[in-house]
């Protein structure tokens, strides 16, 4: 890591424009906004978290907006192909941790800012870790990671904790920025249906009538690889694997007279690489970070709650309030506390639940994350879990476990956090 030079004197002009915003009321400032030194001091103290493929942009923008205590997580190391847009990295950094190099660079460039980098997956950190932040800004590139951070922040809601999630994403010339106030406004899971799934080609097209080079590459990975390599998983970072797929795809393409299969294309198709356009990343990250600034200071109204940006057909942006889904599995029904007698049986618990109006159910099935307590369908699972009805709750669950109850008559599952009565 590069050494960090901190200059102790600060030019009065340095934050001139930010000061203009924070020391005067604007026509749309929140009624609680108190112009002066306080918003700036608050900004400097506030712990903020950033992660994801938009990391460079987000880090730079947050640091230049007056945030001074920033954490960043990135599990990736710097690849030569990142250098075209991830401007905090130099050729000499290839192979090093993105989080660490970016943190060192920004700390050196923006004096007075403290950036704490972690070279790991966001999922490696627990609730206690995320609880320390006032705002989370994410420009993650996988659906899985976004669902995870979203569910984590929704589940943290309670006891005066409600951490806004500012989520940005890009795909080529398109992108979006959104503000999620967990359980207050629409969450990531609420809009999952809106995602266009990866455009898949029917398996039989791959198997019998390929028409495009991509079909040949998919044929090699989806059909030929399992046929010849069995259970071995494809590792796209292993050049031998990529070469194998490329060779197979090329052979197939020749057979069907399809030109255009290349090694790079093979990598692109298998990794499902969507080209990242530097300017789209910059636009979306900028939008995310100015939302962070507005939420932190209340100097101006924040985005409520979804801004889509389309740059592929001329340019178009549209901001709207995406509706919260009542039956969202993540934010539609938060787990409630439920105290049970550890000595009582599962059957007794189910009878008790019938006495509560909100849990009077026709055919409830019960699970914790680790255990099928009693599932009423399908038949075989019912038979396998029936013996649990006689068991005491202390044999089946621990304090702090989440209990999920589903019922065919209910649009979503009820969730409870178990504590034992003494």
């Amino acid at each position, binding site marked *: 890591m590069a050494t960090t030079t901190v200059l102790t004197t600060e030019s009065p002009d340095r934050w001139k424009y930010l000061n203009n915003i924070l020391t005067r009321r604007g026509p749309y400032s929140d009624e*609680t906004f108190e112009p002066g030194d306080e918003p700036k001091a608050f900004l400097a103290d506030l712990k903020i978290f950033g992660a994801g493929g938009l990391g460079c942009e987000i880090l730079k923008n947050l640091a230049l907006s007056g945030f001074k205590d920033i954490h960043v997580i990135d599990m990736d190391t710097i690849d030569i192909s990142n250098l075209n847009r991830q401007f905090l990295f130099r050729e000499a950094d290839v192979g090093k941790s993105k989080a660490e190099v970016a943190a060192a660079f920004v700390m050196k460039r923006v004096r007075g800012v403290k950036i704490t980098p972690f070279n790991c997956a966001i999922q490696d950190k627990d*609730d206690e870790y995320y609880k320390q932040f006032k705002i989370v800004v994410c420009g993650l590139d996988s*659906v*899985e990671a976004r*669902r995870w951070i979203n*569910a984590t922040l929704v*589940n*943290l*809601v*309670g006891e005066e*904790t*409600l951490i806004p999630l500012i989520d940005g994403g890009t795909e080529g010339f398109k992108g979006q920025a959104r503000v999620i*106030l967990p*359980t*207050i406004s629409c969450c990531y*899971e609420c809009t*999952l*249906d809106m*995602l266009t*799934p990866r*455009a*898949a080609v*029917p*398996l039989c097209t791959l*198997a*019998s009538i390929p028409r495009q080079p991509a079909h040949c590459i998919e044929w090699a990975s*989806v*059909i030929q690889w*399992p046929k010849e390599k069995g259970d071995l998983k494809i590792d796209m970072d292993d050049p031998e694997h990529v070469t194998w797929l490329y060779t197979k795809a090329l052979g197939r393409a020749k057979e069907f007279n399809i030109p255009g299969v290349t090694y790079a294309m093979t990598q692109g198709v298998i990794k499902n690489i969507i080209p990242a356009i530097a300017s789209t990343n910059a636009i979306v990250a900028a939008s995310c970070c100015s939302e962070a600034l507005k*939420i*932190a*200071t*209340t100097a101006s109204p*924040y985005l409520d709650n979804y801004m889509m940006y389309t740059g592929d057909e001329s340019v178009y942006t549209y901001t709207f309030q995406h509706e919260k889904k009542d039956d969202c*599995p*993540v934010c539609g029904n*938060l*787990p*409630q506390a439920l105290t049970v007698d550890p000595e009582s049986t599962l059957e007794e618990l189910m009878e008790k639940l019938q006495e509560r109006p909100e849990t009077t159910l026709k*055919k409830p*099935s019960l*699970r*914790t*994350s680790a*255990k*099928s307590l009693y*599932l009423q*369908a*399908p038949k*075989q*699972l019912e038979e396998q879990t029936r013996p649990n009805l006689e068991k005491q709750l202390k044999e089946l669950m621990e304090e702090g*476990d989440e209990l*999920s109850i*589903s*019922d*065919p008559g209910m649009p979503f*599952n009820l*969730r409870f*956090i*178990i504590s034992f009565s003494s």
Partner: protein
Amino acid sequence: MLKIWSMKQQQQAASAASGKKKVTAAQLRVQKDLGELSLPSTMKTHFPDPDDILNFTLTIEPDEGMYKGGAFNFDFTINQNFPHEPPKVLCKQKIYHPNIDLEGKVCLNILREDWKPVLNLNAVIVGLQYLFLEPNASDPLNKEAAEDLKTNRDNFKRNVRSSMGGGYVKNISYDKVTK
């Protein structure tokens, strides 16, 4: 800072609790889907570990059509991205079917290109059952079987019978699926 907590309190009295071991969104959804499963007598499930509802086997025993008398096993593997991603379904036996290849891959639109998160496990199971009632020659995964079905239906039927008994069709030996 935006007074988010007071916004929350205005919205409703918050009484949420936070637990240690959370049920994942995929688990919540699969639990719900299983509860809504209505399996006819021709189908049954097998859960090697009843506590793991993301991995199970489905057995289909068609009581009509050309595949009557066979018992066909499908492995269901559901990952944490469900229902954003469809379940992975693989036929455990080597069978002679135009829409299932020799490795067990299944050509069913809703398992791939037409999957949507609003679809549930029941839809997938109904789709699989339909493949045995109406094998489809226009979406071939086993090209020879599809060709047979297209050109000579009676011959195809004979091939189905001998393959189900564990015999050979065009030098390929198939698994015995009859009892």
